[in-house]
Protein backbone atom coordinates (compact mmCIF):
# COMPACT_ATOMS: atom_id res chain seq x y z
CA UNK A 1 0.00 0.00 0.00
CA UNK A 2 1.10 3.51 -0.72
CA UNK A 3 0.40 5.82 2.15
CA UNK A 4 -1.48 8.87 0.93
CA UNK A 5 0.78 11.87 0.84
CA UNK A 6 -0.55 14.44 3.28
CA UNK A 7 -0.27 17.26 0.75
CA UNK A 8 -2.02 15.84 -2.28
CA UNK A 9 -5.76 15.19 -2.39
CA UNK A 10 -7.11 11.69 -2.59
CA UNK A 11 -9.41 11.70 -5.64
CA UNK A 12 -10.54 8.09 -5.62
CA UNK A 13 -10.83 5.58 -2.84
CA UNK A 14 -11.92 1.98 -3.17
CA UNK A 15 -12.30 -0.29 -0.12
CA UNK A 16 -12.91 -4.02 0.10
CA UNK A 17 -14.54 -4.41 -3.30
CA UNK A 18 -16.08 -7.76 -4.15
CA UNK A 19 -17.84 -8.42 -7.44
CA UNK A 20 -18.98 -11.66 -9.05
CA UNK A 21 -20.68 -12.54 -12.28
CA UNK A 22 -22.59 -15.76 -12.83
CA UNK A 23 -21.37 -17.15 -9.51
CA UNK A 24 -17.72 -16.60 -10.45
CA UNK A 25 -15.71 -14.01 -8.52
CA UNK A 26 -14.36 -11.27 -10.79
CA UNK A 27 -12.93 -9.02 -8.07
CA UNK A 28 -12.02 -10.11 -4.55
CA UNK A 29 -11.25 -7.65 -1.77
CA UNK A 30 -9.83 -4.88 -3.93
CA UNK A 31 -8.76 -1.68 -2.17
CA UNK A 32 -7.12 1.19 -3.94
CA UNK A 33 -6.35 4.84 -3.45
CA UNK A 34 -5.69 7.32 -6.25
CA UNK A 35 -3.96 10.58 -5.38
CA UNK A 36 -4.04 13.82 -7.34
CA UNK A 37 -1.15 13.86 -9.82
CA UNK A 38 -0.83 10.07 -10.10
CA UNK A 39 -0.21 8.43 -13.43
CA UNK A 40 -1.39 4.99 -12.38
CA UNK A 41 -1.12 1.95 -14.61
CA UNK A 42 -3.43 -0.92 -13.66
CA UNK A 43 -1.89 -4.04 -15.15
CA UNK A 44 -3.47 -7.43 -15.48
CA UNK A 45 -4.04 -10.19 -18.02
CA UNK A 46 -7.24 -10.45 -20.06
CA UNK A 47 -10.20 -11.32 -17.87
CA UNK A 48 -8.49 -10.13 -14.70
CA UNK A 49 -11.29 -7.67 -13.87
CA UNK A 50 -9.69 -4.39 -14.97
CA UNK A 51 -12.65 -3.13 -16.98
CA UNK A 52 -15.02 -4.23 -14.23
CA UNK A 53 -13.00 -2.28 -11.65
CA UNK A 54 -13.14 0.92 -13.71
CA UNK A 55 -16.88 0.55 -14.27
CA UNK A 56 -17.45 0.09 -10.55
CA UNK A 57 -15.35 3.15 -9.75
CA UNK A 58 -17.38 5.20 -12.23
CA UNK A 59 -20.70 3.87 -10.94
CA UNK A 60 -21.62 1.98 -14.13
CA UNK A 61 -21.69 -1.28 -12.14
CA UNK A 62 -22.58 -1.83 -8.49
CA UNK A 63 -20.23 -3.91 -6.34
CA UNK A 64 -21.57 -6.83 -4.29
CA UNK A 65 -19.57 -5.61 -1.31
CA UNK A 66 -17.27 -2.75 -0.49
CA UNK A 67 -17.46 0.93 -1.36
CA UNK A 68 -16.14 3.59 -3.69
CA UNK A 69 -15.60 7.30 -3.15
CA UNK A 70 -15.15 9.67 -6.07
CA UNK A 71 -14.00 13.05 -4.80
CA UNK A 72 -15.32 11.95 -1.43
CA UNK A 73 -18.75 10.89 -2.66
CA UNK A 74 -20.29 7.54 -3.58
CA UNK A 75 -20.69 7.19 -7.39
CA UNK A 76 -24.51 7.42 -7.28
CA UNK A 77 -24.34 10.82 -5.54
CA UNK A 78 -21.43 12.09 -7.58
CA UNK A 79 -22.97 14.68 -9.88
CA UNK A 80 -19.87 16.72 -10.76
CA UNK A 81 -19.25 14.39 -13.66
CA UNK A 82 -17.20 16.97 -15.57
CA UNK A 83 -14.41 16.16 -13.07
CA UNK A 84 -13.91 12.70 -14.58
CA UNK A 85 -13.15 11.65 -18.12
CA UNK A 86 -13.58 8.05 -19.30
CA UNK A 87 -12.51 6.38 -22.50
CA UNK A 88 -14.03 2.89 -22.48
CA UNK A 89 -12.28 -0.18 -23.84
CA UNK A 90 -14.59 -0.36 -26.86
CA UNK A 91 -14.45 3.36 -27.62
CA UNK A 92 -13.16 2.73 -31.14
CA UNK A 93 -15.77 0.06 -31.82
CA UNK A 94 -18.46 2.55 -32.74
CA UNK A 95 -20.52 2.22 -35.92
CA UNK A 96 -17.93 3.10 -38.62
CA UNK A 97 -20.62 4.82 -40.68
CA UNK A 98 -21.72 7.05 -37.80
CA UNK A 99 -22.12 10.52 -39.30
CA UNK A 100 -20.32 12.73 -36.79
CA UNK A 101 -17.45 15.10 -37.43
CA UNK A 102 -14.48 15.28 -35.07
CA UNK A 103 -15.81 18.64 -33.91
CA UNK A 104 -19.21 17.15 -33.12
CA UNK A 105 -17.65 14.27 -31.18
CA UNK A 106 -15.83 16.72 -28.89
CA UNK A 107 -18.85 19.02 -28.58
CA UNK A 108 -21.28 16.21 -27.67
CA UNK A 109 -19.62 15.88 -24.28
CA UNK A 110 -19.27 19.62 -23.70
CA UNK A 111 -22.96 20.06 -24.38
CA UNK A 112 -24.04 17.14 -22.19
CA UNK A 113 -22.92 18.82 -18.98
CA UNK A 114 -24.95 20.25 -16.16
CA UNK A 115 -24.44 23.82 -17.27
CA UNK A 116 -25.34 25.33 -20.60
CA UNK A 117 -22.40 26.55 -22.60
CA UNK A 118 -22.47 29.38 -25.14
CA UNK A 119 -21.47 28.75 -28.73
CA UNK A 120 -18.28 30.89 -28.55
CA UNK A 121 -17.20 29.12 -25.35
CA UNK A 122 -17.91 25.79 -27.01
CA UNK A 123 -15.84 26.77 -30.05
CA UNK A 124 -12.92 27.81 -27.86
CA UNK A 125 -13.04 24.69 -25.71
CA UNK A 126 -13.24 22.40 -28.75
CA UNK A 127 -10.36 24.18 -30.46
CA UNK A 128 -8.09 24.10 -27.40
CA UNK A 129 -8.83 20.43 -26.76
CA UNK A 130 -8.16 19.45 -30.37
CA UNK A 131 -4.97 21.50 -30.45
CA UNK A 132 -3.77 19.81 -27.26
CA UNK A 133 -4.09 16.36 -28.84
CA UNK A 134 -2.76 17.66 -32.17
CA UNK A 135 -5.92 16.84 -34.10
CA UNK A 136 -7.17 20.34 -34.95
CA UNK A 137 -6.54 19.92 -38.69
CA UNK A 138 -9.06 17.06 -38.75
CA UNK A 139 -11.88 18.97 -37.05
CA UNK A 140 -14.28 18.58 -39.98
CA UNK A 141 -13.39 14.96 -40.79
CA UNK A 142 -15.91 12.20 -40.15
CA UNK A 143 -14.73 10.31 -37.06
CA UNK A 144 -15.04 6.90 -38.76
CA UNK A 145 -12.45 7.91 -41.36
CA UNK A 146 -9.65 8.37 -38.82
CA UNK A 147 -7.16 5.72 -37.77
CA UNK A 148 -7.55 4.02 -34.38
CA UNK A 149 -4.80 6.15 -32.85
CA UNK A 150 -6.30 9.37 -34.19
CA UNK A 151 -9.72 8.37 -32.87
CA UNK A 152 -8.25 7.77 -29.43
CA UNK A 153 -6.74 11.24 -29.47
CA UNK A 154 -10.12 12.71 -30.40
CA UNK A 155 -11.67 10.83 -27.47
CA UNK A 156 -9.02 12.32 -25.19
CA UNK A 157 -9.96 15.73 -26.57
CA UNK A 158 -13.61 14.95 -25.84
CA UNK A 159 -12.70 14.08 -22.25
CA UNK A 160 -10.32 16.99 -21.55
CA UNK A 161 -12.59 19.59 -23.18
CA UNK A 162 -14.66 19.45 -19.98
CA UNK A 163 -11.60 20.17 -17.86
CA UNK A 164 -11.57 17.00 -15.78
CA UNK A 165 -9.24 16.39 -12.83
CA UNK A 166 -8.88 12.67 -13.57
CA UNK A 167 -8.91 10.64 -16.76
CA UNK A 168 -9.60 6.89 -16.98
CA UNK A 169 -8.45 5.03 -20.08
CA UNK A 170 -9.27 1.36 -20.69
CA UNK A 171 -6.77 -0.35 -23.03
CA UNK A 172 -6.46 2.77 -25.17
CA UNK A 173 -3.63 1.50 -27.36
CA UNK A 174 -5.11 -1.70 -28.75
CA UNK A 175 -5.04 -1.23 -32.49
CA UNK A 176 -2.51 1.60 -32.32
CA UNK A 177 0.83 0.81 -33.96
CA UNK A 178 4.05 0.87 -31.90
CA UNK A 179 5.33 4.21 -33.15
CA UNK A 180 2.06 5.97 -32.47
CA UNK A 181 1.80 4.27 -29.07
CA UNK A 182 4.90 6.13 -27.94
CA UNK A 183 3.43 9.37 -29.21
CA UNK A 184 0.19 8.56 -27.41
CA UNK A 185 1.95 7.88 -24.10
CA UNK A 186 3.96 11.09 -24.51
CA UNK A 187 0.69 12.98 -24.85
CA UNK A 188 -0.64 11.37 -21.67
CA UNK A 189 2.64 12.15 -19.90
CA UNK A 190 2.34 15.80 -20.95
CA UNK A 191 -1.25 16.02 -19.73
CA UNK A 192 -0.14 14.47 -16.44
CA UNK A 193 2.84 16.70 -15.75
CA UNK A 194 2.07 20.05 -17.34
CA UNK A 195 -1.72 19.71 -17.36
CA UNK A 196 -1.81 18.42 -13.78
CA UNK A 197 -4.26 15.75 -14.84
CA UNK A 198 -4.43 12.53 -12.83
CA UNK A 199 -4.37 9.55 -15.17
CA UNK A 200 -5.52 5.97 -14.62
CA UNK A 201 -4.61 3.68 -17.47
CA UNK A 202 -5.70 0.07 -17.65
CA UNK A 203 -3.82 -2.36 -19.84
CA UNK A 204 -2.67 -5.95 -20.27
CA UNK A 205 0.49 -4.60 -21.90
CA UNK A 206 3.34 -4.16 -19.40
CA UNK A 207 5.19 -2.14 -22.05
CA UNK A 208 3.29 0.84 -20.64
CA UNK A 209 5.41 0.72 -17.51
CA UNK A 210 7.57 3.41 -19.02
CA UNK A 211 8.97 6.74 -18.01
CA UNK A 212 5.60 8.48 -17.65
CA UNK A 213 3.94 6.12 -15.19
CA UNK A 214 4.56 6.84 -11.51
CA UNK A 215 2.27 4.28 -9.82
CA UNK A 216 1.53 0.71 -10.72
CA UNK A 217 -1.20 -1.67 -9.60
CA UNK A 218 -1.30 -5.32 -10.62
CA UNK A 219 -4.74 -6.84 -10.72
CA UNK A 220 -5.77 -10.41 -11.20
CA UNK A 221 -9.09 -10.72 -9.42
CA UNK A 222 -7.15 -9.59 -6.36
CA UNK A 223 -4.79 -6.66 -6.20
CA UNK A 224 -1.25 -8.10 -6.15
CA UNK A 225 0.72 -4.92 -6.01
CA UNK A 226 -0.01 -1.26 -5.59
CA UNK A 227 2.87 1.14 -5.27
CA UNK A 228 5.22 3.48 -7.02
CA UNK A 229 6.91 2.70 -10.29
CA UNK A 230 10.29 2.26 -8.58
CA UNK A 231 8.92 -0.11 -5.97
CA UNK A 232 7.28 -2.06 -8.80
CA UNK A 233 10.50 -2.48 -10.74
CA UNK A 234 12.34 -3.80 -7.69
CA UNK A 235 9.50 -6.02 -6.50
CA UNK A 236 8.69 -9.49 -7.68
CA UNK A 237 5.12 -8.50 -8.53
CA UNK A 238 5.50 -9.00 -12.22
CA UNK A 239 7.20 -12.39 -11.85
CA UNK A 240 4.59 -13.44 -9.34
CA UNK A 241 1.78 -12.74 -11.76
CA UNK A 242 3.54 -14.44 -14.63
CA UNK A 243 4.35 -17.43 -12.43
CA UNK A 244 0.61 -17.65 -11.78
CA UNK A 245 0.32 -18.76 -15.40
CA UNK A 246 -1.13 -15.48 -16.63
CA UNK A 247 0.03 -14.14 -19.90
CA UNK A 248 1.22 -10.61 -19.74
CA UNK A 249 2.75 -9.16 -22.84
CA UNK A 250 6.27 -8.25 -21.90
CA UNK A 251 8.47 -5.88 -23.74
CA UNK A 252 11.18 -3.81 -22.23
CA UNK A 253 11.66 -0.14 -22.83
Amino acid sequence: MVLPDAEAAELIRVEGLHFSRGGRPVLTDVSLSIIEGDFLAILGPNGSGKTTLLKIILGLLKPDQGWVRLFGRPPEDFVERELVGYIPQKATHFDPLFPASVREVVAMALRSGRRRISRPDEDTAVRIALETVDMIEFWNRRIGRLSGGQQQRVFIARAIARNPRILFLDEPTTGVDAENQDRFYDLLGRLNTSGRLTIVLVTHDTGIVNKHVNKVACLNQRLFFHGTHDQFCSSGALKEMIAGGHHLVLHRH
Partner: protein
Amino acid sequence: MDAFFEYAFLQRAVGAGVCIAVACAVLGVFLLLRKDAMIGHGLSHIAFAGIALGLLIRQWPMAVSLAVAVVAALGIMKLKESAGFHGDTAIAVCSSLGMAVGVILASISGRFDASLLSYLFGDILAIEPAEVVLSALMALAVLVITAVFYHRFMFMTFDREAAQAAGVPVRRLDALMSVATAITVVLGMKIVGILLVAAFLVIPAAAGLQTAVRFKSAVGIAAVVASASVVVGLAAAYLLDWPASGTIVVVSFLIFGILFLFRRRA
Protein backbone atom coordinates in the same frame (compact mmCIF):
# COMPACT_ATOMS: atom_id res chain seq x y z
CA MET B 1 -51.43 25.15 -58.67
CA ASP B 2 -53.54 27.97 -57.15
CA ALA B 3 -56.50 25.67 -57.09
CA PHE B 4 -54.38 23.28 -55.11
CA PHE B 5 -54.19 25.52 -52.06
CA GLU B 6 -57.80 26.53 -52.25
CA TYR B 7 -58.76 23.28 -50.75
CA ALA B 8 -58.75 23.72 -47.01
CA PHE B 9 -58.44 20.04 -46.40
CA LEU B 10 -55.31 19.89 -48.50
CA GLN B 11 -53.76 22.78 -46.61
CA ARG B 12 -54.53 21.05 -43.34
CA ALA B 13 -53.12 17.82 -44.63
CA VAL B 14 -49.91 19.49 -45.75
CA GLY B 15 -49.47 21.37 -42.46
CA ALA B 16 -50.04 18.40 -40.20
CA GLY B 17 -48.21 16.06 -42.52
CA VAL B 18 -45.05 18.13 -42.61
CA CYS B 19 -44.94 18.52 -38.81
CA ILE B 20 -45.40 14.82 -38.23
CA ALA B 21 -43.04 13.79 -41.01
CA VAL B 22 -40.25 16.00 -39.65
CA ALA B 23 -40.70 14.58 -36.14
CA CYS B 24 -40.54 11.04 -37.56
CA ALA B 25 -37.45 11.83 -39.61
CA VAL B 26 -35.48 13.43 -36.78
CA LEU B 27 -36.28 10.64 -34.37
CA GLY B 28 -35.57 8.10 -37.10
CA VAL B 29 -31.93 9.23 -37.36
CA PHE B 30 -31.35 8.32 -33.71
CA LEU B 31 -33.34 5.08 -33.97
CA LEU B 32 -31.41 3.82 -37.01
CA LEU B 33 -28.09 4.57 -35.34
CA ARG B 34 -29.31 2.76 -32.22
CA LYS B 35 -30.01 -0.25 -34.48
CA ASP B 36 -33.66 0.18 -33.61
CA ALA B 37 -35.01 0.41 -37.17
CA MET B 38 -37.83 -2.05 -36.48
CA ILE B 39 -39.27 -0.27 -33.44
CA GLY B 40 -41.58 1.84 -35.63
CA HIS B 41 -42.88 -1.26 -37.38
CA GLY B 42 -43.53 -2.99 -34.06
CA LEU B 43 -45.18 -0.03 -32.38
CA SER B 44 -47.43 0.62 -35.39
CA HIS B 45 -48.86 -2.89 -35.11
CA ILE B 46 -49.42 -2.42 -31.41
CA ALA B 47 -51.04 0.94 -32.12
CA PHE B 48 -53.47 -0.98 -34.31
CA ALA B 49 -54.63 -2.94 -31.26
CA GLY B 50 -55.09 0.44 -29.54
CA ILE B 51 -57.26 1.71 -32.40
CA ALA B 52 -59.40 -1.42 -32.30
CA LEU B 53 -59.74 -1.07 -28.52
CA GLY B 54 -60.77 2.57 -28.93
CA LEU B 55 -63.41 1.60 -31.48
CA LEU B 56 -64.68 -1.11 -29.14
CA ILE B 57 -64.99 1.06 -26.04
CA ARG B 58 -66.15 4.01 -28.16
CA GLN B 59 -63.45 6.38 -26.99
CA TRP B 60 -61.32 8.49 -29.32
CA PRO B 61 -59.25 5.76 -31.04
CA MET B 62 -56.16 7.95 -31.46
CA ALA B 63 -55.97 8.68 -27.73
CA VAL B 64 -56.44 5.03 -26.75
CA SER B 65 -53.89 4.02 -29.34
CA LEU B 66 -51.42 6.58 -28.01
CA ALA B 67 -51.75 5.22 -24.48
CA VAL B 68 -51.31 1.63 -25.66
CA ALA B 69 -48.30 2.52 -27.81
CA VAL B 70 -46.55 4.42 -25.01
CA VAL B 71 -47.00 1.53 -22.57
CA ALA B 72 -45.80 -0.94 -25.21
CA ALA B 73 -42.75 1.17 -26.07
CA LEU B 74 -41.67 1.26 -22.43
CA GLY B 75 -42.42 -2.46 -22.12
CA ILE B 76 -40.27 -3.33 -25.13
CA MET B 77 -37.44 -1.25 -23.69
CA LYS B 78 -37.65 -3.15 -20.39
CA LEU B 79 -37.84 -6.51 -22.16
CA LYS B 80 -34.74 -5.75 -24.19
CA GLU B 81 -32.89 -4.60 -21.09
CA SER B 82 -33.73 -7.43 -18.75
CA ALA B 83 -34.81 -10.58 -20.54
CA GLY B 84 -31.76 -10.76 -22.78
CA PHE B 85 -33.83 -11.21 -25.93
CA HIS B 86 -31.82 -11.34 -29.08
CA GLY B 87 -31.95 -8.17 -31.19
CA ASP B 88 -35.39 -7.52 -32.60
CA THR B 89 -37.08 -10.53 -30.98
CA ALA B 90 -38.95 -8.49 -28.37
CA ILE B 91 -40.29 -6.18 -31.08
CA ALA B 92 -41.29 -9.06 -33.36
CA VAL B 93 -43.17 -10.83 -30.58
CA CYS B 94 -45.01 -7.70 -29.44
CA SER B 95 -45.95 -6.58 -32.94
CA SER B 96 -47.48 -9.93 -33.90
CA LEU B 97 -49.40 -9.95 -30.64
CA GLY B 98 -50.61 -6.39 -31.33
CA MET B 99 -51.96 -7.29 -34.73
CA ALA B 100 -53.64 -10.44 -33.39
CA VAL B 101 -55.32 -8.65 -30.50
CA GLY B 102 -56.32 -5.83 -32.86
CA VAL B 103 -58.06 -8.21 -35.26
CA ILE B 104 -59.97 -9.88 -32.41
CA LEU B 105 -61.04 -6.57 -30.84
CA ALA B 106 -62.11 -5.13 -34.19
CA SER B 107 -64.17 -8.21 -34.88
CA ILE B 108 -65.85 -8.10 -31.45
CA SER B 109 -66.71 -4.44 -31.87
CA GLY B 110 -68.14 -5.19 -35.30
CA ARG B 111 -66.06 -2.40 -36.81
CA PHE B 112 -64.30 -4.15 -39.66
CA ASP B 113 -65.27 -1.23 -41.86
CA ALA B 114 -64.01 1.87 -43.58
CA SER B 115 -63.00 3.62 -40.36
CA LEU B 116 -60.67 0.76 -39.48
CA LEU B 117 -59.27 0.73 -43.00
CA SER B 118 -58.55 4.44 -42.72
CA TYR B 119 -56.18 3.67 -39.87
CA LEU B 120 -54.53 0.84 -41.76
CA PHE B 121 -53.81 2.89 -44.86
CA GLY B 122 -53.96 6.44 -43.49
CA ASP B 123 -56.45 9.10 -44.37
CA ILE B 124 -54.62 12.38 -44.33
CA LEU B 125 -57.24 14.12 -46.45
CA ALA B 126 -59.92 13.42 -43.86
CA ILE B 127 -57.94 15.00 -41.05
CA GLU B 128 -60.08 17.24 -38.81
CA PRO B 129 -59.03 20.80 -37.88
CA ALA B 130 -58.77 19.83 -34.21
CA GLU B 131 -56.60 16.86 -35.12
CA VAL B 132 -54.32 19.09 -37.18
CA VAL B 133 -53.70 21.34 -34.20
CA LEU B 134 -53.20 18.43 -31.83
CA SER B 135 -50.91 16.53 -34.18
CA ALA B 136 -48.86 19.61 -34.91
CA LEU B 137 -48.51 20.34 -31.19
CA MET B 138 -47.43 16.81 -30.38
CA ALA B 139 -45.02 16.70 -33.27
CA LEU B 140 -43.65 19.99 -32.00
CA ALA B 141 -43.27 18.51 -28.52
CA VAL B 142 -41.24 15.64 -29.97
CA LEU B 143 -39.05 18.10 -31.87
CA VAL B 144 -38.50 20.18 -28.73
CA ILE B 145 -37.50 17.05 -26.78
CA THR B 146 -34.97 16.07 -29.44
CA ALA B 147 -33.63 19.63 -29.64
CA VAL B 148 -33.19 19.92 -25.87
CA PHE B 149 -31.50 16.51 -25.52
CA TYR B 150 -29.84 16.55 -28.95
CA HIS B 151 -26.24 16.31 -27.71
CA ARG B 152 -27.03 13.84 -24.95
CA PHE B 153 -28.92 11.59 -27.37
CA MET B 154 -26.02 11.83 -29.81
CA PHE B 155 -23.45 11.10 -27.09
CA MET B 156 -25.28 8.05 -25.74
CA THR B 157 -25.93 6.75 -29.25
CA PHE B 158 -22.27 7.11 -30.13
CA ASP B 159 -20.74 5.78 -26.90
CA ARG B 160 -23.22 4.76 -24.23
CA GLU B 161 -20.69 4.02 -21.48
CA ALA B 162 -18.68 7.20 -21.94
CA ALA B 163 -21.92 9.17 -21.93
CA GLN B 164 -23.10 7.46 -18.76
CA ALA B 165 -19.79 8.14 -17.01
CA ALA B 166 -20.08 11.77 -18.13
CA GLY B 167 -23.37 12.04 -16.28
CA VAL B 168 -25.88 11.46 -19.09
CA PRO B 169 -28.92 9.72 -17.54
CA VAL B 170 -29.03 7.05 -20.24
CA ARG B 171 -31.91 4.97 -18.84
CA ARG B 172 -34.23 7.94 -18.40
CA LEU B 173 -33.34 9.18 -21.87
CA ASP B 174 -34.04 5.70 -23.30
CA ALA B 175 -37.51 5.94 -21.81
CA LEU B 176 -37.98 9.46 -23.15
CA MET B 177 -36.99 8.34 -26.63
CA SER B 178 -39.35 5.36 -26.41
CA VAL B 179 -42.24 7.62 -25.48
CA ALA B 180 -41.37 10.09 -28.24
CA THR B 181 -41.26 7.23 -30.73
CA ALA B 182 -44.65 5.94 -29.64
CA ILE B 183 -46.12 9.43 -30.07
CA THR B 184 -44.70 9.90 -33.56
CA VAL B 185 -45.86 6.45 -34.67
CA VAL B 186 -49.44 7.14 -33.62
CA LEU B 187 -49.31 10.58 -35.27
CA GLY B 188 -47.73 9.19 -38.41
CA MET B 189 -50.45 6.58 -38.58
CA LYS B 190 -52.89 9.40 -39.33
CA ILE B 191 -51.03 10.37 -42.50
CA VAL B 192 -49.69 7.17 -43.98
CA GLY B 193 -51.47 4.52 -41.94
CA ILE B 194 -50.30 1.69 -39.73
CA LEU B 195 -48.92 -0.31 -42.60
CA LEU B 196 -46.69 2.47 -43.87
CA VAL B 197 -45.75 4.54 -40.83
CA ALA B 198 -42.55 2.59 -40.24
CA ALA B 199 -41.38 3.80 -43.66
CA PHE B 200 -41.64 7.35 -42.35
CA LEU B 201 -39.29 6.61 -39.47
CA VAL B 202 -36.79 4.83 -41.69
CA ILE B 203 -36.61 6.18 -45.27
CA PRO B 204 -35.89 9.91 -44.66
CA ALA B 205 -33.45 9.04 -41.86
CA ALA B 206 -31.65 6.52 -44.05
CA ALA B 207 -31.42 9.16 -46.78
CA GLY B 208 -29.77 11.54 -44.32
CA LEU B 209 -27.43 8.93 -42.90
CA GLN B 210 -26.09 7.80 -46.26
CA THR B 211 -25.40 11.35 -47.43
CA ALA B 212 -24.12 13.31 -44.45
CA VAL B 213 -20.65 13.69 -42.97
CA ARG B 214 -21.89 15.58 -39.95
CA PHE B 215 -24.66 14.55 -37.56
CA LYS B 216 -26.41 17.89 -37.93
CA SER B 217 -26.60 17.49 -41.71
CA ALA B 218 -27.94 13.93 -41.35
CA VAL B 219 -30.80 15.28 -39.23
CA GLY B 220 -31.35 18.25 -41.57
CA ILE B 221 -31.39 16.14 -44.74
CA ALA B 222 -33.80 13.66 -43.14
CA ALA B 223 -36.16 16.51 -42.18
CA VAL B 224 -36.07 18.02 -45.68
CA VAL B 225 -36.62 14.64 -47.36
CA ALA B 226 -39.59 13.99 -45.09
CA SER B 227 -41.21 17.40 -45.72
CA ALA B 228 -40.63 17.19 -49.45
CA SER B 229 -42.16 13.71 -49.54
CA VAL B 230 -45.35 14.97 -47.91
CA VAL B 231 -45.69 18.05 -50.12
CA VAL B 232 -44.75 16.38 -53.41
CA GLY B 233 -46.55 13.18 -52.50
CA LEU B 234 -49.81 14.96 -51.71
CA ALA B 235 -49.61 17.05 -54.86
CA ALA B 236 -48.98 13.97 -56.95
CA ALA B 237 -51.76 12.05 -55.20
CA TYR B 238 -54.14 14.93 -55.85
CA LEU B 239 -53.20 15.32 -59.50
CA LEU B 240 -53.12 11.62 -60.29
CA ASP B 241 -55.99 10.69 -57.99
CA TRP B 242 -53.81 8.16 -56.21
CA PRO B 243 -54.04 7.25 -52.52
CA ALA B 244 -52.10 9.83 -50.51
CA SER B 245 -50.35 7.42 -48.12
CA GLY B 246 -48.86 5.18 -50.77
CA THR B 247 -47.89 8.11 -52.96
CA ILE B 248 -46.08 9.90 -50.10
CA VAL B 249 -44.07 6.81 -49.24
CA VAL B 250 -43.20 6.12 -52.88
CA VAL B 251 -42.05 9.72 -53.30
CA SER B 252 -39.87 9.46 -50.19
CA PHE B 253 -38.37 6.30 -51.61
CA LEU B 254 -37.67 8.06 -54.93
CA ILE B 255 -35.90 10.89 -53.11
CA PHE B 256 -33.96 8.29 -51.14
CA GLY B 257 -32.98 6.67 -54.43
CA ILE B 258 -31.81 9.95 -55.93
CA LEU B 259 -29.74 10.74 -52.81
CA PHE B 260 -28.30 7.24 -53.00
CA LEU B 261 -26.55 8.34 -56.17
CA PHE B 262 -24.99 11.20 -54.19
CA ARG B 263 -24.18 9.13 -51.13
CA ARG B 264 -21.05 9.71 -49.12
CA ARG B 265 -18.09 7.71 -50.37
CA ALA B 266 -15.87 6.01 -47.79
